């Protein structure tokens, strides 16, 4: 826990300075999680702000300190899910289009010189993003939290408020779908892309 419950209590009582401290303590972690879930740098701050906005208006519902972090994660998951759903409804924002824009922006900022590492990392991001197109937005987030964020099943149980077995089944099915897409892509086929 990065903050003590006293600080949360003060924020619940309407102390904006206390809320500011909570945001400062968690914002980097939340930004990192959102970055890995949505993989779009230009929208990460917007989604993170939405998380803290929801936190501000629902803080009075929090009863115990132990549930604060899973609860904040749940808000993050919900905000990321809403974002991904909106993105799916807007076909003009495809990964390939955005990637071109990102490359152009990177070119412009780096004076036309793109590092080899950046290209490699961009390729990795695109590959995983394309693979995750094989599963729903909800399963994509779940897989990200488990496989990339490294959260345990116990932690996920607290966030999703469902039992461990149900989570295991869901994770297994999602992973199987991703594996199938991965197998197809390694054989030279284009994996199914969402949108």
């Amino acid at each position: 826990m990065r903050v003590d419950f006293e600080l949360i209590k003060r924020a619940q009582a309407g102390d904006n300075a206390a809320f500011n401290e909570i945001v400062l303590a968690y914002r980097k972690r939340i930004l990192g999680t959102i970055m890995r879930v949505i993989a779009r740098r230009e929208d990460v701050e917007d989604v993170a702000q939405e998380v803290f906005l929801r936190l501000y208006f629902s803080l009075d519902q929090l009863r115990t300190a132990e549930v604060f972090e899973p609860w904040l994660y749940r808000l993050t998951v919900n905000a990321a899910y809403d974002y991904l759903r909106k993105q799916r409804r807007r076909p003009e924002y495809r990964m390939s289009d955005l990637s071109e824009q990102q490359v152009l922006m990177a070119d412009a900022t780096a004076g036309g010189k793109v590092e080899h590492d950046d290209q490699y990392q961009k390729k990795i991001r695109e590959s995983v993003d394309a693979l995750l197109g094989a599963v729903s937005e909800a399963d994509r987030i779940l897989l990200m939290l488990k496989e990339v964020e490294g959260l345990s099943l116990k932690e996920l149980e607290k966030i999703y408020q469902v039992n461990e077995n149900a989570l295991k089944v869901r994770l297994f099915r999602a992973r199987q779908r991703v594996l199938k897409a991965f197998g197809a892509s390694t054989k030279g086929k284009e994996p199914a892309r969402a949108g």
Partner: protein
Amino acid sequence: MRGSQDDQLDALFRAYREACATPEPSVHFMPQLWRRIESRQSFTFSFRRMANALVTAAVAATVCLGVYTTIRRSDAAFYSQSYVEALAEASTIDTDLVAPARLEINQAPFE
């Protein structure tokens, strides 16, 4: 059973984690957040004010209707009448226009 593809996928996820480095928050992060909070607060406040006004109006209308109904029911004459009396009172126009029928029994039928 985990196959080689499982391991490759795990490696890809690890590489993805490294490729998605945590971005540094911009200097506008906190000011923008507070601006959004304030704008949501003002919207909530005006919505709450509108809801309060509607509730007050509904309560006032309920009280007025209650008072009106109570006054009407307290009219004793209204309830002391029988059904026929009430009906007769309600159709006074008919009784004025249509005279009661009279039977002249002493009169010869065809004079």
